[in-house]
């Protein structure tokens, strides 16, 4: 049996990633939380 292992792994992992990804809402919430925290701690600037 000859299987293109690299492509198989890539395809499987891509599918796994898509199925386990955070929802857009979860991502947005986490990004907002992080941004707020980092602004508070002075890691990033509030204004560009």
């Amino acid at each position, binding site marked *: *049996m*000859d*299987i*293109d*292992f*690299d*492509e*198989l*792994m*890539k*395809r*499987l*992992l*891509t*599918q*796994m*990633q898509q199925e*386990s*990804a*955070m929802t857009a809402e*979860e*991502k947005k919430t*986490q*990004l907002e*939380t*992080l*941004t707020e*925290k*980092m*602004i508070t701690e002075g*890691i*990033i*600037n*509030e*204004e*560009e």
Partner: protein
Amino acid sequence: MKKSELIYIVEEAKNGSKKAFETLYNEYSDRVYFFVLKNVGREDVAEDITHDTFLKSMEKIHTLEKPENYLTWIHSIAYNKCADMFRSESRSTYFDSEEEQEAVMDNLALNEPVMVPEDHATNRDTARQLMSIIDGLKPDMKSAVIMYYYDDMSAAEVGKALGLNQNAVKQKLFQARKKLRAEIEKLQQQGVAMCAVPMGRMLHKCVSPKYAAAAKVSSSAAVSGGLVAGKAAAAAAAVLLIIGIPVGLHFMDSNKNGSTGDTRILDSSANLTVSHTNDSSLTADITDSDGEVLETIESRPDETVSAAKKDEDSSKSSDSKASADSKADSSSSKASTSGNGKSLNMDLDALRADAVARAKKEAADEEAAKKEAADKEAAKSKADSSKSSGANIVTTENRTENTTTSAPDDSSKPEEKKETLPVEMSVDKMLTMSPSALIELSNNDFELVPLTGTQSQSYGIKCKAFPSYVFYAPNYIEDGAVDGGYTTELNGQTCTIFFAGSISQIEIADGTEIGGISTGMTYEQIKAVKGGTLTVRNENSFISVCSEVELDGHNYYLAYDLTEEQTDRIYAYMADTKPDFNIMDPAYVDLSDLGIDPVCTCIIGFSDGFRYGRSNNY
């Protein structure tokens, strides 16, 4: 994200740009979350660790000297966060033993009947099982797989992120591949449809922009400009990306050529027609020798880019170059492409021939270089071992198995027996040798034996000249006799082992005594030999606890046969006496205090810088 863009964004992030941070988060959070989730297995924990990873990355981003290494760098932060989590829980929540891991994987993938009758089989089912197998890999192996295959990181980059050397990463990838391949073969044996695509691998190796351009020159079609040739290469590569796997998994439920078997192989009669349409998407028709379309596949531009990159990165493929021969030989195909109304014929036979020639030359060059290096090293080793104090060749009466060599020029001469004599050499000296040198000293008389002290199923070499030891060096094993490696038998089957690094570990063979200690002795017996002083320390999730002792001038790990209950008691005791113990700052316990007297099952010595496949700077 392009490299130049990434460098710019990271520099902006260093200046505290909120927008730059948001860009980095939006670009990489999915990857980091996926990586973490597959390590820790719980969504809530993965979300927390992803959050902490990005927070820490921004706190420390000014320390990132090379912005282009951002992906590797943030993975290393994520990995360390996962490791911190494991340490905080005192011990791994995953597998305590190889057997447990195997059992879990069996339950996930194999013990369940694979109900895929012809009319109900779906590729999704099989893919699901394969995903379960990936999920069942140990965290470090899975981490390497995700970074290498999904994030397209090199072995060196993965090594940096995981705190491993490159060889250790390759070993993990090799083990993962081996595991998955074995499971795929089991699935096939169970009747699940799988498909070999020799043409795909061949095309993948053959069709690069260079060869497409060469084909363009020889083409009788009216093709103008290099763009079409480039597109042709990209298109062909894109189709490879598509047919490489989907053919293997998709076709099992759409057997259009009327055959009743589950397995379909696109053989030498298969033709490939690639079309580039006005909306930049690509379609490919795979036809049989009668021109009947077996399958039409569509690809979008992003897949083209990805595939083209993959083509460039084809050297990443782990399988040996020598295998190109058989793959290429199995197919004789022609592909025709049409782009923007113009057609281009590529004679894949010519490309195949060229690829075969290149593969053969590379294999021959590689073999010659290896042989030369091995010869030099063996000669040097022999000289060194003769010179070194206490290192001499001794003759024993145990000569029942001898290496056989044939007279080179006269096959009618009787075969000449060449004795393999045991070689006496210090462990420290052995750990400076290469596997090939040790095998040469054994006149190629060696066998592969399963290792006891590794996290995954691995094989070491037991050389006739060194009967008391089993050596381990990163390696991979191929079925059959393959040029360039060491061919031997494993489980009654011919195989070839290739070494990818130097000796990193030596196990003391069962029954061999070293410093008055051997496997099979109990903790108390060993303690008596060591003058009444012995402890165990916490180690990784596989070995759990071990004693670290000096025997004959070298440090060894002693592993024990402990029950789960005993291990729990030891860890509880460690937590009581040293609450913040971890793998870098371990706790030590004298098992006599707990009334536990386990049997020593494994004695392992490591080369400098290695301990259970991780470097000391882990």
